[in-house]
């Protein structure tokens, strides 16, 4: 019965199908609330039976997420969500696996699992809540905290060089990287849909605000006054144009990006670089992921989306091929194969 319903797509799901009965205990004003709402809107729109979602997390504020979704879910241990997700996906590749993590969980303690999951291209959706601070332990710097920031463990300012998660993803041979903002539900929903569609490890960095310990860390990007000049929404096949007047664009000068103004110095829209998220070449994607205010706008949307075979598919193909060819069909066959003797 269940299977028939899936095939015919009869099941119409709504946001309510995924809302849990648990009290959401994030701080008032926390960016996590908006992300939860966006995910609740995306899941019913994917055409996947509600029993086939698994939400996995590690440890941190964001990692409470599975408790707030009415799906199958695992709230695991610090840094290990990627490895849990890997096990879930490999055990049953039909499941839609969503991993919720933060900058401490995935960039620090879980860094190894993060890069290897991406390298293998396991078909999961990885939502990285980047608030550039350890929130749950009350305000220590994280691997993405801007250099010089004063935090509980950097009273004189950090002297660590922060990670740019997008560059790390691409460096780990990632096939999908997108960036979005907790303040823009529409864009967030669109990006989550794209992540869900991509076969492989889809990493979405969500610039998320911690109201308590790093409030306004993304201020330059999100404030009403500066956002138009600091946000660039990338779109496949479209020129990289931004600004209040929609007249600024990214041009390639030698091997560097520069900002040009359309209508000045003979620059027309044709001179502006056109976004191609599907090219395997990671050079421009890396440059896009690197762009940060105040020098450049931050790139938002799907920066990289390259079709590459997934680990789970390759594994299933290998199993199917072995099963088709082997004469050993069960354990009794195996136990009696090779050199045996009768007494």
């Amino acid at each position, binding site marked *: 019965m269940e299977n028939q319903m899936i095939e015919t797509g009869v099941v119409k799901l709504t946001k309510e199908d995924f809302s849990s009965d648990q009290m959401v205990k994030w701080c008032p004003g926390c960016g996590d609330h908006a992300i939860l709402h966006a995910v609740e809107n995306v899941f019913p729109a994917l055409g996947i039976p509600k029993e086939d979602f698994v939400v996995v997390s590690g440890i941190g504020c964001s990692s409470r997420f599975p408790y707030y979704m009415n799906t199958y879910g695992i709230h695991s*241990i610090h840094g*290990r969500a990627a*490895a849990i997700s890997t*096990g*879930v996906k*490999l055990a049953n590749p039909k499941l839609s696996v969503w991993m919720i993590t933060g900058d401490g969980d995935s960039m620090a303690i879980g860094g190894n699992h993060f890069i290897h999951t991406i390298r293998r291209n396991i078909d999961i959706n990885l939502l990285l809540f980047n608030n550039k601070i350890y929130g749950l332990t009350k305000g220590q710097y994280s691997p993405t905290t801007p250099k010089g920031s004063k935090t509980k463990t950097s009273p004189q300012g950090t002297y660590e060089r922060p990670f740019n998660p997008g560059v790390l993803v691409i460096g780990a041979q990632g096939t999908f990287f997108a960036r979005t903002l907790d303040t823009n539900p529409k864009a967030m929903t669109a990006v989550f849909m794209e992540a869900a569609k991509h076969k492989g490890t889809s990493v979405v960095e969500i610039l998320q605000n911690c109201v308590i310990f790093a409030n306004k860390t993304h201020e330059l990007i999100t404030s009403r006054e500066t956002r138009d000049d600091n946000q660039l929404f990338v779109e496949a096949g479209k020129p990289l144009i931004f600004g209040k007047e929609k007249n600024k664009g990214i041009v390639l000068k030698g091997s560097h990006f520069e900002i040009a103004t359309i209508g000045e110095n003979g620059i027309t829209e044709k001179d502006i670089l056109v976004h191609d998220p599907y090219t395997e070449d990671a050079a421009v994607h890396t440059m896009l992921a690197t762009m940060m205010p105040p020098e450049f706008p931050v790139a938002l949307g799907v920066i990289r989306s390259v079709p590459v075979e997934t680990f789970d598919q390759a594994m299933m193909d290998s*199993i199917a091929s072995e099963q088709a060819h082997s004469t050993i069909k069960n354990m009794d066959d195996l136990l009696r194969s*090779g050199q045996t*003797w009768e007494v």
Partner: protein
Amino acid sequence: MTSKNSKVIELEQVVIRFAGDSGDGMQLTGSLFSDSTAFAGNDFATFPDYPSEIRAPQGTVSGVSGFQIHFGQKTVHTSGDLADVLIAMNPASLKANMRWVKEGAIIILDGDTFIEKGLEKAGYKADPLTDGSLSAYRVIKSPISNLTKEAVKHLDIDMKSTMKSKNMFALGIVMYLFNRELELVNKYFERKFKANAIVVEGNKAVLAAGYNYADTIELFSTTYKVEPAPLGKGTYRNINGNVATAWGFMAASERSGRPLFLGSYPITPATEILQELTYYKNLNVKAFQAEDEIAGIVSAIGASYTGALAITTTSGPGLSLKSEAIGLAVITELPLVIVDVQRGGPSTGMPTKTEQSDLMQALFGRNGEAPVIVLAAKSSSDCFYCAYEASKLSLEHMTPVILLTDGSLANGSEVFRIPKVADLPSIVPPLAQANDTDYQPYKRDPERLNRQWAIPGTEGLRHRVGGLEKEDGSGNVSQDPMNHQKMTLLREAKVERVAQYIPEQEIIGSPDADLLLVSWGGTYGVMLTVAEKMQKQGKSVALAHFRYIMPLPRNTADILGRHKKIVVCELNNGQFVKYLRMTYPQFKYEQYNKIQGLPFMVAELEAKFNALLNQ
């Protein structure tokens, strides 16, 4: 082939030790001889003894690799104390192995390597072949290197490959000495080097050359034969502990209907389980080589939540890395089997040497109150049944199980009577049924206290698990003080109740013997050998060998309470004895401990037990 130039003497049992440089292929030589031993119908046990370096400096004592086989016409429980025959491919292997050789033993040497340079590398001040130090042995010095070259002269084989096959010349000599057929080994060459006819021909030529050389020049005035052992009716094969472990899990997967998932990271001496399981995609085995030990176990926990028979395999250092994750499996009450193939520790310790020193880590090495079932395999072939039983207990009681094996079981091999999967005990995991309106994640079975297993993809059972303490029943996150106490006690009771589902502890010998020998895990063979030997001599000893460590069998106290003396024997500094002192403080325990990275020897145990009896 039959030996013509010598008379044949029948022996009851023999111990042969093959030794050479770690690149000389002594492990292969030994295992080929084992296969031939199996074919001859003898019972046997083997023990590889090799360095942790892949190619330590050639010709030095630190680079010597050894392989010992004990075979007989009676049941064989150990790989043997001292060797009756030593094959030493160079001076260093002679030097490293003399202490494992019986007085009067046959020593077969490659005489071509006993030159000044070789002797110097081995650290010999004088040539042992001429200084009289070997006068108590029957030394057979043969020009193995040169004769190997001669044997393949007619073939187009380079010098390096030629010298690689000199182990087959030595094997040929030993095959002659024990009146074995060469056919089986030749077939191995044909399989192994299918793509390279010249290598097949070369190896066959060298093997035959060794055999014929021994015959032609009448190397031995007598040769030996060991009649087949009276094994019970059935189909048999040779199996080592790691392969047996892997196959035990596969059998449990088939019998339980739960697909097998392994998350693992290479580590000596456990790696072979991972390697073995990667072969069997045809049987739907998913063996995932993770980026580290932690990802190995954590991916297995993910797979377990998703409905797989999930396992992870490691050795001591890896078990340390996995301990936080084991706690997650404890609190989420998911089935998971963790195999620890123990080796010498602490830290990197002695990776290729055997030890039983992870017992305390297995029992207690986690934060919080985190009880798990602990089993310990008693022999290489028992690894099959232990892996099977670990899976059964884990799946049916919804709790992690740690299975302890060790380096000597893992690499040692013995005769294995092949079971039929249908004859193995059933495995019935407590699966929750779709759309069960009464389903609650932490609702428990009143007998076993396990919760149900609700698998993603099943309609009507969506639920969350995690590392935060859960309310009994609902499974909601709870920091309630009384609930935490209740859950802690429930998790403990769940493991303790397993005692009702495992057999009672066996005792070999009189239940009222003066001296009770107590041991656990991989020392069974040698303990049994000593116990039987002393019982035959009329000594009042009995053996209680433990496979179930946590929980202990329900009759353990009854058994311990009926003897004048108890001696607990372990290859560690006394971990099981501490555990028994803690659990049953009413008894007095003697202990015998060996921490040398080596198995017990019959003689040392016998001496200790006689001393205790005579006290």
